[in-house]
């Protein structure tokens, strides 16, 4: 009974804050609305006896949103929301597509005979996840690790202002860079 109420609150809150992301005027508020949406979603996950995953989601989302707030403020004007702002394009089309997708998915949800499992639920799902990741799902682990590493390298490469090709020019093995723009590494 209590779980049902909590679930309902969390679900409604998640969707509402999700909608709010795109309705508020300020970028900072949008970011925090998104954070709220994630927290509510994590709440529903906690209700499924997935303690580790719920906490993981909470922690990760807090970190991400905070980082995102910094970037938002860097790139967008009107951070405090003092003036109303909507920057949308193709709103009607998007609404139509989104509405159509939701209708299709809802129809599927209610029409498809979902399978039920008769097996008992494990007492410690976290342990089961850990054993799986270190055992039969090791490949997933490794791919995720590689993926993260690749992302790090890619982002640094993309975001570097002036790389060594800009600073050294043609003489890549020179001891000191010949860079007209002062500052940077290797000084």
């Amino acid at each position, binding site marked *: 009974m209590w*779980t*049902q109420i909590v679930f309902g609150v969390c*679900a409604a809150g*998640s*969707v509402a804050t*999700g909608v709010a*992301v795109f309705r508020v005027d300020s*970028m900072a508020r*949008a970011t925090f609305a998104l954070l709220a*949406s994630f927290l509510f*979603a994590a709440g*529903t*996950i906690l*209700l*499924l006896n*997935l303690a580790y*995953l719920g906490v*993981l989601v909470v922690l*990760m989302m807090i970190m*991400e949103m905070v*980082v*995102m707030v910094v*970037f*938002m403020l860097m*790139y*967008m004007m009107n951070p405090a929301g003092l003036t109303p702002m909507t*920057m*949308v*394009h*193709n709103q009607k*089309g998007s*609404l139509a597509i*989104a509405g159509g*997708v*939701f209708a299709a*998915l*809802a129809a599927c*949800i*209610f029409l498809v005979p*979902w399978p*039920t*499992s008769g097996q008992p*639920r*494990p007492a410690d*799902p976290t342990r*089961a*996840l850990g*054993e*799986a*990741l270190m055992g039969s*799902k090791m490949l*997933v682990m490794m791919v*995720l690790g590689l993926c*993260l590493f690749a*992302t*790090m390298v*890619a*982002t640094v490469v993309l*975001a570097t*202002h002036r790389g060594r090709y800009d600073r050294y020019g043609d003489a890549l093995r020179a001891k000191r860079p010949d860079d007209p723009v002062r500052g940077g590494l290797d000084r």
Partner: protein
Amino acid sequence: MTLQEYLLLAAALFSVGLYGALSQQSIVMIMMGLELMANAVIVGGAAFWYFASPARPDGQVVVLVAVTLMAVDMAIGFAVTTAIFRRRDIDVTDSAADLKG
């Protein structure tokens, strides 16, 4: 708490995220839409694990992958935005119409 309720929640989150990804002009706002869609995957994955096959940890692995995905895509997205901003001093996708035609 039934499977259908959870899935309905996931579908709603997905639709909202899709609306955002399609309608927003700013790159960062598009990314927020993508985050919401990944959020829907997280909820859906967890629900399927709990109701359809709790004995196997595959559902949890899906959730983990989705979380990692969110982190990765945010990182790359911001790197690309920085690169474009440095080059052209804009942060909306409408100007990046290089693939037109």
